[in-house]
């Protein structure tokens, strides 16, 4: 075992003088970063208490996170209604978990449920109506808002992106050039501009007295923005398919939609799963930008919490916490996509 390790390290870490130098430098870096971080984050940290003054150990003050935990998760959502958010996410996670256990042919129904029915249920649960107290979107926030925006963005931008990708390769000039213009315009604008246009400029164009909810405007803006990126990723997949697939589908008498949905898209999307996952992780990480139009997802709540006079100076704890959350969620997304990739990979079997 030990001899194996020595042999391995000789071969891969110390094979010549500059590899050795790089290895030593990396070891030095790890030693100078990790122990102080562990000291700060765990050994010297304070975990229990109610106030900033309870943090006397000199390390991280996790009391800050525990006191603000509810706000970090749910924003200003009324406490007595938080179960509604929880229920929505349980339904979402439950449906995805359930899909692992059902037979292949039912999965299409589950996908249909997730894309068309779940958003309606979740919207009614979280916003209210039909007997539930209305909670204005002004009060939504925290990690829940991050997820709401990300899930809404994914659910809306994926089908839209696929349609745009098909449209861009269409033989009908009107559709083709419309899609090209649409995609290139949205890809040419920074997300920040889209957010400002949706949150600030759009209401100025409406007659006064008419309102479209700000969160809805922003969410649609994000979804359309991302759909342009999804479209280009999917187009990459479409182009990678050999001409023969199209000809084969046509030769057995399939129409345009049949050909695309049963032959072309399943193969194309399979090859671009990593690209789509990339786009979705980017979408998740873009959501904190909404802070600049006055909405508070998890990072916004951190900023708000650290500005409370009784919690000044907690920026590092807050940012580290947010970083961990974003890291974990991105990791889950990417490992799920890797699983999908493995499952659908037919090439090397």
């Amino acid at each position, binding site marked *: 075992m030990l001899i194996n390790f020595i042999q391995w390290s000789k071969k891969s870490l110390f094979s010549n003088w500059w590899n050795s130098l790089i290895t030593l430098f990396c070891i030095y870096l790890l030693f100078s970063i990790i122990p102080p971080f562990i000291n700060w984050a765990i050994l010297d940290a304070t975990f229990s208490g109610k106030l900033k003054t309870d943090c006397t150990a000199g390390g991280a003050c996790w009391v800050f996170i525990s006191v603000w935990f509810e706000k970090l998760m749910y924003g200003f959502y009324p406490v007595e209604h938080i179960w509604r958010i929880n229920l929505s996410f349980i339904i979402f996670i439950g449906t995805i978990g359930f899909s692992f256990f059902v037979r292949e042919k039912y999965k299409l129904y589950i996908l249909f449920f997730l894309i068309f029915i779940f958003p309606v249920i979740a919207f009614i649960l979280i916003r209210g109506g039909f007997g539930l107290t209305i909670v204005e979107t002004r009060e939504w926030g925290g990690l829940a808002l991050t997820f709401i925006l990300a899930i809404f963005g994914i659910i809306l931008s994926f089908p839209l992106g696929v349609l745009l990708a098909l449209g861009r390769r269409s033989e009908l000039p009107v559709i083709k050039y419309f899609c090209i213009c649409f995609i290139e315009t949205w890809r040419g604008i920074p997300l920040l501009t889209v957010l400002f246009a949706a949150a600030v400029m759009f209401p100025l164009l409406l007659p*006064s007295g008419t309102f479209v909810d700000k969160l809805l405007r922003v969410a649609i803006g994000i979804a359309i923005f991302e759909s342009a990126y999804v479209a280009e990723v999917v187009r990459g997949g479409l182009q990678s398919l050999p001409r023969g697939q199209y000809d084969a589908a046509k030769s057995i008498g399939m129409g345009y939609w049949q050909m695309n949905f049963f032959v072309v898209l399943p193969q194309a999307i399979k090859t671009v799963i990593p690209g789509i996952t990339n786009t979705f992780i980017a979408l998740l990480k873009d959501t904190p930008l909404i802070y600049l139009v006055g909405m508070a997802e998890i990072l916004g709540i951190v900023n708000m*919490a650290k500005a409370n006079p009784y919690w000044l100076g907690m920026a590092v704890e807050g940012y580290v916490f947010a970083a961990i959350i974003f890291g974990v969620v991105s990791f889950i997304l990417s490992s799920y996509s890797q699983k999908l990739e493995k499952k659908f990979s037919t090439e090397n079997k």
Partner: protein
Amino acid sequence: MKTNILKFFGSLALLFAFVISSVTANAGTKDDVTKKGSLNCGVSQGVPGFSNADASGKWTGIDVDMCRAVAAAVFGDANKVKYQPLSAKDRFEVLKSGQIDMLARNTTWTLSRDAGLALEFVGTNFYDGQGFIVRKAAKINSAKKLNNVKVCVETGTTTELNLRDYFKANNLKYEAVAFTKADEAVAAYDAGRCDVYTTDKSGLAAQRTKMKNPAEHTVLPETISKEPLGPVVRGDDQNWKDIASWSLYVMIEAEELGVSSKNIDSMKSTDNPNIKRLLGLEGDTGKSLGLAPEWAYNIIKQVGNYGEVYEKNVGANTPIGLARSGSPNQLWTKGGILYAPPVR
């Protein structure tokens, strides 16, 4: 066929009339607010002492109390406020588009904003200004003695421009060390990368609490810029502007007359006509504003006078600890510049 076309145009006209009517239904802001049942007030996303939320979601701060005062004047209930956190970048547009009724977001009153944006500043609820903080060990007691120093500052703010103007005007040399975030600039100053840190004085006080040893630092007495912070309303509604202005003035007037939220009920038996007018016992000050006679009483009773609001949010006993005496935020009778026109 012809009737069909007529019907079509008829319904189109109806639809158009409906859209127009929904536009003209937009009457005075006060009526809108009364109808909605709550005041939509734009605040910051967290500025210590001015507007910030606590872990239970409750908003406090000088600006928040301004919102509460207007709600108390209009509804007789200071709690009928919905807070809308806004970033520095979208605050004016959100106000202009009518999504909020007033903006109380530590906004500096300047000519270009007042005249250029079709907005109306209602007054000043906090006189801020840029200052410097240095280490006590440096033995600098005046900003005039700052020469050949390194200054930590945030980029892209008026703070940076004021800093340049000040050193140029006084023929002093400095080196700016710029950061994009206040937290970074403070951390750099605290770590010894700069001799001086500069921002608005209210900010200096709050930032000082983040330092490793706040007692080692001292704020220099000079104020190098004028930052009168105040609430803003749309410029198209004089009545609403008056309501906001006088909500602020009665808080200042109440302090001058010695009326506070604690003694206001015992003050009812006073003979002082000024106090009687303030409490709505003599003359009807609410009438010309379109408010109930006891509007000012409600503000003082529920929110407090200016002194109470100041001490509660940024005063010496808060973590921000801004001493009031000697600052401009003191009544004119005590050497400050707070001066309310007579409430009569």
